[in-house]
Every structure is written in structure tokens, then in C-alpha cells.
């Protein structure tokens, strides 16, 4: 934060540059479309504070939610990023890291302003972060135009790593990598798995009514139908619906027992509580969904009420591999709490960046070489084998089918099956 203040003060005198920064931010806000930023874009060489022995400082701009409903996700990603850097002694490939943190406030307009600041004012070498898909979509063009390498560490909207007609609502960019997941990856495989392996042929969908929830329902439906199953009906709840009793009453009034849901955070908690209150488990109804429905933040509040829920995700805190054990231990030791999937996504973002920098010997100025290096990173992540799909820059990863079980008085996601090497079908 202090560096930010100093940078601001320094730039205060440079009125022309400030003018450019402010005006391009305004342009980005006004258009949110093809942002032809008027300012120079060479983000690398001119950073301040080069030290004598080590390489020049590496400026990483992280755009995360530090306020509003996703604040804890932002905090989690920040913790994981800082922990990774701490383990590497504060520098990556010999370049001491300077952080610039900005709050996206879960608002595409704010996200666009802060991205413009990273590009024009801070001139960061690499940008990371962004939780909400609409923000990622809103800044995609500005990042692409500025030729800024951006590692997306959460937002899972399919279009961010796909070729789409007229780039609507977004499309892949040479400069954008993603270390989290695409909506397809957490929704389609579990649909196909249900119809083929689990023998569940009829499912009712109930999802959060916004871009990502709808994508998840569509991808799940495609997977289930492919496997020979069918959807008997659907229901949607707006994001942030506090009262879930009316919805669960509706679910209870229809005969299909298996429900597929996409909810996260507060919505997931309120949904699961309403589910128990109306006695759904005793009537034979089964809760299923994308993994966020029963992630750590939800599970620690609803506990055994989520018992039996089947979800899919590319990670679980209980996942049995050496990297995950080391990661969970280190995180727990440093912060005295269990990591969540968001921490893993940020951790892998740092890991991918680190390895690419090793390959280019710390050079980020030659964009093509830097991108080629990122495209070929392969490593063992806490989630298992990690690599990017060179075509789309989305990860190729195993999806785990998990079931919430109560073990020793604690509700945990246990792994019951795995769909190996899931690749997003985008081109």
C-alpha cells in the first residue's frame, strides 16, 4: 500500500501522464468495449527501484475483491500469493517482486478503472486476479490492447478462453491465461458421469440466475443428455436471494429427486439450510452441484447439514498427494486456517508465473517468448498435474467427484471418483 502512495505522489507531478491515465480510465468506463487506450503500453522496462545485484523489480498487479460479498475470496488469494512469494524469498527468477493491490469491489466499472491504472499508471509487468466473470469480460479488451499478460485466478466464464462470434460476450486472448477452471469443466463432466456411471437419468436443475450459474446449468444439461439422461425441469434464483424457502418449497413440490445446483457463498449456505429445514433428505431428495456448493467457506457454516451432497471440483482439501499436503501444511502454519480452492488457484497462478519466468530468465519484455514460456509450463499442483491448453490458455485438469461425509464429527468433501484430464472444448 505504501508503494502505491509513493507512486501516486510521484505521478502527481507528471500531469500529462496522469491525464492519460484518467482519460483512458474514463474511456474504458464509457465504452467497456474495444478500448483503444491512447497511452503507451510498454509495461516492463521503466519500473522504478532496480536493485544493483538482482534483476529489475517485477511489478505484479493483483486485482481482487477486498470489499463486498467476495471479500474473503480476495483475502484468500492474497494470502496464497504472498505465501508463495515468501517461500521464494521475495523474488521470482531473480527479480524482486513489488505488489500492487487493487480492490475490484465486485463491480465491472471499478474493475475497468483499476485495470487502466495497472496499465497506464503503475505499468505492471504482470496482472493477476479477478473473481467475478463480468469483470473479467469487461477488462478483456483493455488487457488485450495493452498486450499485458494477465493470469486469471478465478472467474470461470467459458467465453474468456474460447473463440466466440464477434467476441461476444468475451473471447480468448493471447495475453490471457487462466489457472482456475472454465464453467464447462466443473459442470459437464459431472453431468455425463451422473448419466453413465451413477445411473441417474433424471435431474432437476436449480441454479443462481446470472451468467455463470446459467452456463453451469447448460453445461451440466449437455453432459447429462450426452450420457442419455434428461432434465425434468429447472428453476433459477437471483444472485443474493436471501430467502431460499420459497425455492426449496417448489423443489419439494415436484417429483424428481436428484437436484443439480450452482450456488456459492451466502446463497449456498441459505440454500442448504432451507433444504434441511424443509426435511428434503428424509423425503429422498439428493443435493448435487458444482463444487462451490460445498466448498470450505460454506461447509464450515452448514456442517453436517450438507451431508451426502455430491459435487465436482478440481481440488479438495483432503486430496491425497504430496504437493497438496505440503501446500495445506504451509498455509495452515502461516495463517492458522485451512486453505480453500481460491487459495489453490492463486497459488498455481504464482507457480505458473514463476516457472515461466525461470524459463525466460526473468525476461518479461519479450512478450512472445514470455507467452510461449507460460504456454509450456507443466507442474505438480496441489490439484494434481497442471498444464495449460496451448490453444485456449485454460488449464487441462482432472475433475474429482466428491461427496460430503461426516468424519470424526467434521463434514468434509471425500473423493469418490475422478474424470481424468478434462479439457475445455473451446478452440
Amino acid at each position, binding site marked *: 500500500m505504501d508503494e502505491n502512495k509513493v507512486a501516486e505522489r510521484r505521478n502527481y507531478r507528471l500531469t500529462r501522464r496522469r491525464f492519460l491515465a484518467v482519460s483512458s480510465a474514463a474511456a474504458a468506463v464509457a465504452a467497456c468495449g474495444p478500448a483503444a487506450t491512447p497511452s503507451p503500453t510498454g509495461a516492463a522496462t521503466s519500473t522504478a527501484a532496480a536493485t544493483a545485484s538482482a534483476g529489475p523489480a517485477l511489478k505484479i498487479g493483483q486485482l481482487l475483491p477486498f470489499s463486498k460479498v467476495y471479500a474473503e475470496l480476495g483475502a484468500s488469494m492474497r494470502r496464497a500469493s504472498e505465501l508463495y512469494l515468501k517461500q521464494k524469498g521475495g523474488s521470482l527468477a531473480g527479480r524482486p517482486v513489488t505488489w500492487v493491490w487493487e480492490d475490484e469491489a465486485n463491480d465491472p466499472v471499478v474493475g475497468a478503472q483499476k485495470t487502466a491504472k495497472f496499465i497506464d499508471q503503475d505499468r505492471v509487468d504482470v496482472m493477476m486476479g479477478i473473481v467475478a466473470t463480468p469483470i473479467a469480460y469487461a477488462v478483456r479488451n483493455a488487457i488485450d490492447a495493452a498486450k499485458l499478460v494477465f493470469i486469471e485466478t478465478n472467474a470461470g466464464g467459458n467465453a474468456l478462453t474460447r473463440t466466440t462470434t464477434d467476441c461476444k460476450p468475451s473471447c480468448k486472448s493471447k495475453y490471457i491465461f487462466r489457472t482456475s477452471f472454465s464453467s464447462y469443466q466443473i459442470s459437464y463432466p459431472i453431468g455425463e458421469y451422473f448419466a453413465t456411471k451413477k445411473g441417474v437419468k433424471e435431474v432437476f436443475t436449480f441454479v443462481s440466475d446470472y451468467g455463470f450459474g446459467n452456463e453451469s446449468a447448460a453445461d451440466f444439461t449437455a453432459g447429462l443428455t450426452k450420457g442419455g439422461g434428461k432434465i425434468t425441469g429447472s*428453476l433459477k434464483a437471483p444472485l443474493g436471494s436471501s430467502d431460499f424457502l*420459497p425455492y426449496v418449497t417448489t423443489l419439494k413440490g415436484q417429483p424428481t429427486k436428484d437436484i443439480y445446483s450452482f450456488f456459492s457463498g451466502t446463497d449456498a449456505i441459505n440454500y442448504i439450510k432451507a433444504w434441511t429445514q424443509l426435511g428434503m433428505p428424509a423425503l429422498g431428495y439428493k443435493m448435487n452441484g458444482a463444487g462451490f456448493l460445498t466448498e470450505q467457506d460454506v461447509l464450515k457454516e452448514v456442517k453436517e447439514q450438507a451431508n451426502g451432497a455430491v459435487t465436482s471440483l478440481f481440488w479438495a482439501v483432503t486430496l491425497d498427494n504430496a504437493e497438496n499436503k505440503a501446500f495445506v501444511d504451509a498455509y495452515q502454519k502461516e495463517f492458522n486456517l485451512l486453505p480453500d480452492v481460491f487459495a489453490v488457484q492463486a497459488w498455481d497462478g504464482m507457480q505458473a508465473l514463476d516457472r515461466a519466468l525461470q524459463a525466460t530468465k526473468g525476461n518479461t519484455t519479450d512478450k512472445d517468448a514470455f507467452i510461449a514460456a507460460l504456454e509450456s509450463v507443466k507442474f505438480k499442483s496441489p490439484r494434481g498435474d497442471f498444464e495449460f491448453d496451448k490453444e485456449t490458455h485454460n488449464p487441462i485438469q482432472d475433475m474429482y467427484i466428491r461427496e460430503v461425509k461426516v468424519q470424526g464429527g467434521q463434514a468434509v468433501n471425500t473423493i469418490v471418483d475422478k474424470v481424468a484430464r478434462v479439457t475445455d472444448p473451446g478452440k
Partner: protein
Amino acid sequence: MTPETAVVQALNGISFGALLFILAAGLSLIFGMMDVVNLAHGAFYMLGAYITLTVVQRTGQFWLALMLAPLLIGALGLLMEPLLLRRLRGRHLDQVLLTIGVSLVIADLIGLTFGREIRSIPFPAGLDHAITIMGGDYPVYRLFVIAFGVALAVLLSVVHRRTRVGALIRAGVEDAPMLSALGVDIDRLFAVTFAVGAALAGLAGVIAAPVFGIYPGMDVDYLIYSLVVVVVGGLGTLSGAIAGAALVGPVDTFGKVLFPEFALALIFAIMALVLLMRPTGLLGRVRIAR
């Protein structure tokens, strides 16, 4: 929708309406008396929920929280009115801006103290089970919310119509300067009104905590609901808050079920319609410009 489901949905709607009434009553009271739209109302509500969280975590006593939270938040209101709002009396826009500022400070202090995770608390003992209604389980706590809301409405109506304080409030709403000229200590009356309004928001926070979760941003979500309720019902009157809540709760619930695509817009559509047909709200007073 089967008749059984319809009955259960009606209960859902009434219990949501009851909660909205508890929340909106305080906002309406403050506006009626002081002409201030208190935008810190959502923050008081949030504070009530976080006090509940603390008390339940420390002692496991939900009922203690139900006593303590309104008292503490009422005390905060009692301090805030003379220290802050009174200095800006008569400057409505400045007062509204001030309440926004206070709400931001409260929300951020809560964030600093409690962290920014989503929290939830169990239902209080005795109300954590379900009973059979129309052949299915129904949570007792929701019935308690309905009973609590109705009891509070009756209590407030009696105070409003039959007691000296109620007479003072009605007179203050009608013409505060005249009341002051008649020798009533209007400063004290304003401070008490603000404190009671704040306490009601805190009370709503306690009642809502086990059902709707406790999270950063809850202040804004419910401030909007309470504004819709008082605008629909009529600003500044108790009966308006009752009418608004009785309409918005069930409409919101049935809207979610029958027109899911339109759910969020529905209550705002109703609000727009009411404003067009009756600009003062369903039971609002006609205000004479002073």
C-alpha cells in the same frame, strides 16, 4: 402449484413480510418524526446480526442477544442523534449524506472486527425443529418470525394510539415546531425516536440472523428491501410499514416461484406502480410542504 404447496408458499411469504415489517418500522418511524431517510438503517440491522453472532458464539444464548442487541444499538442511536444529526437539523440532504457515512463506517468496522467471511448461526433451541403442515415439514422458526412480527405490530400500534409517548410521536409527525412551542422537549423526543428506530433495525438483525446468514454486504441488501417497503406502504406511518410489508413479502415470495426470471424486478415494478397511482404510498399521509 398444488394447494398444499400454495399454503406453504403463503407461509413463506408472510414470514418474510413479518421480518420486513420489523426492519421497516424503525426506518418509517424515524422518517415520520425527523424527516430523515436514515440510510444507516441497514448498517444497524447488520450490527444487530453481528452482535447476535458474538453473543451466540460466546454464550449460546440467542434470547440474550434478542435483549442485548436492540439495547446496544438503541444506545448507539441515542448518542448519534445529538452528536451528529442534530447539528444538521433542517438540512435534509446533509443529514442523509451523514447517515450514509455512518453506515460505511459501521460496515467497515464490522469487517475489521469480524473478518469478511460468511457466517451463520444455528436456530435457537426450542425453535430448531420442524412441524407438519399440509403433510410436510415446516420450520418452526419461520412461524415464530410471523408471531413475533404480528406481536410487535400490535404492541407498536397500542403504544402509538394509546400512550402519552405515542401521542407525542403523532404530534411530532404532524407538526414538530408547534409541539416544541407547546413546551415539549423536542430534542429529547428526536433522540429517543432515533434510538427506538435504530433498536428496531437491530432487532430485525437478530431475528434474521439464523435464517439469512451474516455477511458483509447484508446491510445494503436489506436497506433496499426496507426502502421498498416504506415507499410502497407510505413513508412515516406505522400502518404504512405494516401494509408495505404485508404486500412486499408475499409478492416477493410468489414472484420468485411463479416468475423466476422476473423475481427481482417484480417488487420494484410494484413500487413504481404504487408511486404512479398513489405517490404517498398505500397508506401515506399527504405531506404539506413547510
